[in-house]
């Protein structure tokens, strides 16, 4: 029985230490998944936007940034945007002017790859 115990112990130990490093929240895809984080430093004319990459896709990110407007469905075609280019997974941008006081805005992080434009969920904020 001793070999059985040793083998069983070994298998249990290997199972315990074989925790996968795969912590992906999405299935694999060509495009990345982005997230927009809460807006900080909001003033009457500006704010600081924050974004992050939740999961990279197989296509390389060419550009990333933020797009914002007073519409929830804001896109690159109809909103104001700031381009940051390729960079780290956590990124942010400080907008110093261009916002109207006491207005509700919606901002989305975005990423562009060879074939896709990906929009993160919007974050709502109100200028002072």
């Amino acid at each position, binding site marked *: *029985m001793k070999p*059985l*115990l040793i*083998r*069983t*112990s070994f*298998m*249990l130990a*290997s*199972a*315990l230490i*074989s*925790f*996968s*490093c*795969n*912590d*992906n*929240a*999405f*299935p*694999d895809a060509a*495009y990345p*998944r*982005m*997230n927009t984080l809460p807006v900080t430093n909001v003033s009457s004319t500006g704010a600081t936007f924050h974004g992050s990459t939740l999961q990279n896709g197989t296509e390389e990110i060419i550009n990333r940034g933020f797009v914002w407007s007073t519409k929830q469905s804001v*896109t690159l075609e109809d909103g104001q945007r700031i381009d940051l280019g390729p960079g780290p997974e956590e990124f942010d941008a400080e907008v110093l002017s261009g916002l109207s006081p006491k207005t509700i805005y919606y901002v989305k992080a975005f990423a562009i790859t060879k*074939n*896709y*434009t*990906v*929009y*993160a*969920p*919007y974050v709502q904020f109100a200028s002072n």
Partner: protein
Amino acid sequence: MPGQGTKHVITMKNLHIAVVLLCTSLSAVAQTDFRKGFIITLEKDTVSGQIDFHDGGRAFSTCLFRKADGGESRSYAPADIAGYGFIDGRRFESKTVTINSAVETGFLEILVGGKVTLYKYREAFFADKDLTDIRQLRDERQTRIVNGETFVRNSNEYIGTLTYFMSDCPEINKNVERTKFHQRSLAKIVEVYNKCKSGTTSTVYNSKKPWAKAIFGIIGGVDFSSPTIDGEWMLFGDKVEALRSAKSPLIGISLDASSPRISERFFFTSSFLYAHVTYHMGSVTNRSYDNFITLEFHELRIPFGFRYSFAPRLVTPFLNAGLSTTIHLKTSSAWRQEVVSGDDVYLTSRGEFPTSDTQLGFWGGIGILTRINQKFDTSFEVRYEHTNGFAASSLDTSLTSSVANIQLLVGLRIK
């Protein structure tokens, strides 16, 4: 991600091998359990040797006896011998009794011997005064219909039988009336009566075994968890499954309680296990509108049930099964929906996913127990658990869910 897939396959292969090894060891060791004892021949001669110990029904119908280690064993039926017993343990006597109107010959276990002798035969109890008048102690459930209403009550006939047998000791009448219909209570009143009748002896067999015993321990391991969510999602029917099984460590305390006087093999078993589980789930239907949910639970899992332990060996196999409840101590979630429209991908947040506070389920497992020293033993176990999941329906969702868990557990018990 081929590397991750390979790793997952290897883990599942290990799990499969572990289950096969445990099953093999279980069947290999589920053998005889010879202990020191004796048989009493029909000529009333006592022959010492070893007897195969059984906790269940076989003890009442068969006696497997051998004279010494490795000797040839012989099976005796109740008609072949007058009785058998274990040294400092259980004692059986061959008798013919009427049980529920049927006549049977079997080995009756003597629980208490004396002026009144108490016997157990399978699930039934018998009492015998002066070894001349053996009667079954009955307590049948009776259904009565009075004015259209159904009432269920117990017959309590055994109180009448005991009162009749013990009427010559009036000071214990009230004790007799309070006697419950279970082994411990019946044995107690017979013992009290035999002592009341000064000059008679009362022998309690198997008395070295305690009525109740609790074994505490620590338990830990790894849990492989796969949830599924099904139902209506904002008018879009969808099914969401785990993107991969969630692996999380488990740690907690265990409790095994038993009544060795009644059974050495059956235990009530329970444990309190803490787990921190993160599920990543996604749509499995092939549509352009997909749900992705990340859920993080801090859980207290409380499985409880019964364990059957096979004959004690260097490695003792066991089986267990029961129900479980999982309490969500802390929950956080991110629910996102994704739409792919041409070249554009829109990810929207649905906020928190509606979750329940608890899960209910059932579980079963097989394992082995081995002794480390006089004070400690250790267990290895594989468990399967199925719960009713964590999804709670809300205004715009009508969801059902389930979680399948496979657990590898290692325990250290203090005897």
